[in-house]
């Protein structure tokens, strides 16, 4: 494949190197002269100097025959514009854009720049998974089917520990499908009593996370009135 990578920061440089090792043809475009000279010492003719939001720079890099354009500059507007032009003007089939500020993801979606990748989002997801206190973890999102599967760890202050599964007021549109206890998973029955340290898996309609968090989460103080 012929792949154009825009932005020779840490992400772009390493990406270009990996792609070259996988025998792809790669052009890495960098607009900062000093950075370009540094990277060029290693990647030689695979690096090109110029501002990739200038159309002629993209054309000089051969965008017309590119199979993929990956925009990983540190500037979200630049990444959006480059991908938009690549896709709509030069009809590049596959684009990938980096989102620097996760709050800008909505703009990428509005302008149909996808897939987009945000390191911050990825790390947040890992954090969700690695840090149990964080609460509810998304295991699977089936966007088309409008279903999701979540995992939740029951801490010692969870309001459902010591209760029978049959007595739980599961929100409508949610179903408890599995309990992981001491490394083993099983399908709970109505008589299963939940314990501290259990991880529960549930399938639910999108938008039910908060209700579920409230049910399985810690006892909240009366300040928000949820008890009433």
């Amino acid at each position, binding site marked *: 494949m012929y792949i154009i990578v825009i932005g020779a920061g840490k992400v772009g440089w390493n990406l270009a190197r990996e792609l070259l090792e996988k025998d792809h043809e790669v052009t890495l475009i960098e607009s900062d002269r000093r950075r370009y000279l540094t990277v060029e010492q290693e990647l030689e003719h695979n690096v090109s100097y110029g501002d990739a939001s*200038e159309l002629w720079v993209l054309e000089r890099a051969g965008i017309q025959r590119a199979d993929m354009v990956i925009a990983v500059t540190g500037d979200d507007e*630049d990444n959006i*514009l480059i991908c938009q032009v690549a896709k709509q003007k030069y009809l590049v089939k596959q684009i990938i854009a980096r989102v620097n500020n996760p709050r*800008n993801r909505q703009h990428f979606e*509005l*302008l149909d720049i996808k897939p987009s990748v945000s390191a911050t989002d990825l790390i947040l997801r890992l954090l969700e998974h690695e840090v149990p206190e964080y609460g509810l973890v998304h295991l699977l999102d089936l966007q088309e089917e409008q279903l999701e599967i979540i995992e939740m760890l029951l801490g010692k202050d969870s309001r459902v520990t010591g209760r029978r599964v049959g007595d739980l007021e599961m929100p409508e549109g949610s179903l408890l499908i599995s309990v992981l206890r001491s490394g083993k998973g099983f399908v709970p029955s109505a008589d299963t009593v939940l314990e501290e340290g259990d991880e529960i898996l549930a399938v639910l309609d999108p938008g039910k996370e908060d209700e579920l968090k409230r049910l399985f989460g810690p006892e909240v103080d009366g300040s928000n009135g949820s008890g009433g």
Partner: protein
Amino acid sequence: MFILIVGCGRVGSSVARAMLREGHEVSCLDEDPESHARLEVGLERSWEDLGGQFTVGAGLETEALVAAGIEKADAFIASTDGDNTNIVIAQIAQKRYEVPTVIARVLDPLRAEWYQRQGLHTVCPTSVAIDMLEGAVREADAGGPPDGAAEAA
């Protein structure tokens, strides 16, 4: 009309003052709080006293755009110093907020032309300057050999 101007540099601030003078409601959004001072150049009273609005924030921030009144804007002008920023926020104004009139300043003629063809109203000061310079040279050429003044310049 309610006009929202994002990017309050020399161009943005001049357009803002002119529009306010013509009786429009004008709101400016700029990252730099100092650019408020530029708005008031040549004004006898403060920008706010004259009915203008000024918000500090970036054009890509939804909260800033909403605070500056994008939801009720009749016209949106993107005149920051970044071409790509202008192109992106103008499309956001067009597509997400459905502002009826959206204009983006784009210095690069190639980008300006292509986005213009995609249905974005772009204004390219560079093209205007190129036309004027070329015109001036042709005019001089048609008028015979340059006189002493032109040569000195």
